């Protein structure tokens, strides 16, 4: 797929497959288009050419008989997005809701789960990310790491088929990074399909099935982590790894 902002082509032909249950880490220098790629996958951005399919279904567009693409209505796009979880660098927890309400919001109002059942689900998810005791606290009383774990629970509450993480630990104090990565590792081991933009090489090395290097709007190199880190084939990968490791 291709994506441009005005005259600036940010993604210049990305072809990529992610298998169910696979964990892919996206690496690359700033401005390489990592965030843009994630945002295109759940149609927070339109795309200019190509298609994106999640679980076999196109996201954001419908194929017309002539082979042309037509952007779907807000309602259809929203329904599609509901099964794609996203975790943001800056958490973006709903500031006016408690942790539990954050988690229950979409199940109740999008999936129309009865309130009591949603509450139960919410409590179970908060327990899973180790925050059952913070259920009734507002985001501004939580640490960054706790906020990000609530954000993960919130995304999981929609029972996603795919989880997108955009530098989930970049805004955290170093001592809080571990708890979030731990939660993500748990998810990966549980078989969740994940695309993770990260600068945490340790996580990429241990948790990823595949590492993809994105630079200048193209995929420069992709390989299993052992191979990727031990014997990068491409010069640009080598210089990038030289800087971050």
């Amino acid at each position, binding site marked *: 797929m291709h994506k441009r902002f005005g005259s600036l082509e940010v993604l210049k032909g990305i072809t990529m497959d992610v298998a169910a249950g696979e964990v892919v880490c996206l690496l690359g220098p700033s401005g390489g288009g990592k965030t843009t790629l994630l945002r295109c996958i759940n149609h927070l951005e339109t795309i200019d050419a190509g298609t994106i399919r999640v679980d076999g279904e196109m996201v954001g567009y419908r194929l017309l008989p002539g082979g042309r693409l037509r952007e779907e209505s807000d309602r259809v796009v*929203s329904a599609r*997005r509901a099964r794609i979880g996203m975790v943001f660098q800056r958490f*973006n927890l709903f*500031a006016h809701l408690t942790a539990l309400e954050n988690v229950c*919001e979409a199940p109740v109002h999008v999936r129309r789960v009865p309130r009591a059942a949603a509450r139960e689900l919410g409590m179970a998810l908060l327990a899973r990310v180790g925050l059952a005791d913070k259920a009734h606290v507002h985001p501004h009383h939580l640490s960054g790491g706790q906020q990000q774990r609530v954000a993960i629970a*919130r995304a999981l509450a929609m029972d996603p088929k795919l989880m997108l993480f955009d530098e989930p630990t970049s805004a955290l104090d170093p001592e809080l990074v571990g708890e979030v990565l731990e939660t993500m590792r748990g998810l990966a081991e549980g078989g969740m399909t994940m695309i993770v933009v990260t600068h945490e090489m340790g996580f990429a090395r241990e948790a990823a099935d595949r590492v993809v290097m994105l630079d200048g709007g193209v995929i420069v190199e992709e390989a299993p982590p052992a191979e990727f880190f031990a014997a990068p084939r491409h010069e640009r990968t080598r210089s990038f790894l030289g800087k971050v490791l």
Partner: protein
Amino acid sequence: MTFDFPYFWHLLFSTAFLAPAWTTFWVTVAAMAIGLALGLFGALGAMSRHSSLRWIVAGYLWLVRGTPVLVQIVFWYDAVAELTNNIINLPALIAGVVALGINEGAYMTEIVRAGLLSVDPGQREAARSLGMTNALTMRRIVIPQAVRIIIPPTGNQFIGMLKTTSLLFTIAVPEIFAQGTNIYTVNFRYFEVLCVVSIWYLALTTVLTLAQRRLERRVGLERARLGGAGQGLLSRLFGAGAAREAR
């Protein structure tokens, strides 16, 4: 000329101003209700993807904010009847409420728009990523957070409106000031009458101010920072005092 205290005292507690005060109050509430509704639609229109909607809102603001409210009041009362050959001939009270409400809508549009813009775009993105539609995102996530920003300036507008209703005396709506003029044109006791009129306005604005503070507490505007511990009447009337008190 001396201040006729007994007359002032008598007028203050007479029933002469009860009905006019009630009229002032509900005209204010009705005009603000129209203003708020127009403000919400105006703000959504101003932020719409459709340029035609944005143009309509821009034209509305330009027209309404660019002309005196007194002119608009007389327009709705007299000019509309003339324009439509008396097919639409609004009673003074209705014309007044419509004129003030439409005028208010322009100012509320800007206030609501500022409130909506103040909500972090990340909140919207997060809601969208969870599968919430545009409308649901607005209703459940953006507007509830914008309300906190919108309430204080809206309180200002409410109090401003209460006083602006006095302009309706020009089209003979029986509100507080009109009642005052009725009385002093007969007995020429301007000072005493205007004192009573002012006291009635002060009483009503006081009620509105207290209602605003109450509402702010309910939506958590003063929030945990202030602890919500017993606040006196003064700090409730003058919000800034409350903030200082809590430090």
